[in-house]
């Protein structure tokens, strides 16, 4: 399975949660597959999906899922100790780990070589870290939501992309409709 197949698999689960989606192809794929007002699409700023998601989770009560990539977590490695030390049980970090920088042409990442993000997350102090295969992602994700425990999921999948259009929505529209959903779901 490749990332877009995981996103297709988990889209029905994501609908009911607040989602922060990583820059580039992950956002474009999710936008194409199942655009929801409850998804904050990142149009720039590589690496910050987990930071933005943790911020949303700490500020309100609904479950927040940050969809991240192995390359983006490597870019913002400092996020893992911050997550570990600021436990928000309504926060799930889903790292789709295909061992490559998909949006820029599938250059290999170190996570696809010797570095284990699962081991790094545990070493940083994250208490619930689950590594799974691509096919298991939706059941592991649903389990994490049900557990109401902050969870880091590392979903291992194959490298590869589908053709998707860029997102042309205005960033302020994306932000405004996301904030409106936050208010509605917390009411």
């Amino acid at each position, binding site marked *: 399975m490749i990332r877009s197949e995981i996103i297709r698999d988990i889209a029905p689960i994501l609908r009911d949660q607040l989602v922060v989606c990583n820059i580039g192809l992950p956002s474009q794929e999710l936008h194409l597959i199942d655009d929801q007002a409850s998804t904050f699409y990142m149009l720039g700023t590589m690496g*910050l999906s987990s*930071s933005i998601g943790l*911020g*949303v989770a700490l*500020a*309100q009560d609904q479950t927040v899922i940050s969809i991240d990539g192995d390359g983006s977590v490597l870019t913002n490695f400092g996020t893992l100790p911050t997550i570990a030390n600021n436990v928000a049980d309504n926060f799930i970090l889903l790292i789709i780990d295909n061992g490559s920088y998909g949006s820029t042409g599938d250059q290999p990442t170190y996570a696809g070589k010797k570095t284990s993000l699962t081991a790094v997350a545990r070493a940083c102090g994250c208490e619930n870290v689950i590594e799974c295969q691509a096919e298991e992602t939706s059941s592991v994700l649903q389990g994490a939501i049900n557990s109401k425990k902050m969870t880091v999921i590392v979903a291992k999948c194959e490298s590869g992309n589908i053709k998707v259009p860029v997102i042309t929505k205005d960033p302020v529209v994306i932000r405004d409709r996301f904030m409106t959903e936050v208010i509605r779901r*917390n009411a």
Partner: protein
Amino acid sequence: MSVSEKIVADFVANGIEFVTTVPCKQLGGVIDAVEKEPKIYHIPSNKEDEGMGLCAGAFMGGKRPAIIMQNTAIGVTVNTLVTLTQFYRMPLPMLISYRGELKEPVACQVEMAVHTKALLNQLNIPTYHFHKPGDEQELDAILKYTFMCNKPVAILTDATFWGGY
């Protein structure tokens, strides 16, 4: 009330409940005051761009954020400021220690100080400079302005303001 306590009291009075910090010796007193304030969730970050991500999230989650950092961070965060905070039109008060100004003992700090205002100007970030004791009287108005216009706003605080290094 110390200057640090006054600054944090202004944060609280303006509804700021989420503050991220990257330490600087000059800002140690404010960071301590943030940590002691029960109405503020203090979340130290490892790098300032990470902190701005946390603040963006907190804002969208319904809490007013602020970041406390050194001016060297302007060099680290240009991409985040323009593609996240400004692009999505989010407010972010940035309380910044203006290292490398008068009374600075460390030469390397001057190298970033000479670029600080130029970079903020290039980014169209409203910038205020606390130089003399008492300049903090303007903080309340600056915070109101920040959340009125939904922009990142810089408050530079130098060694003279803090009463020497």
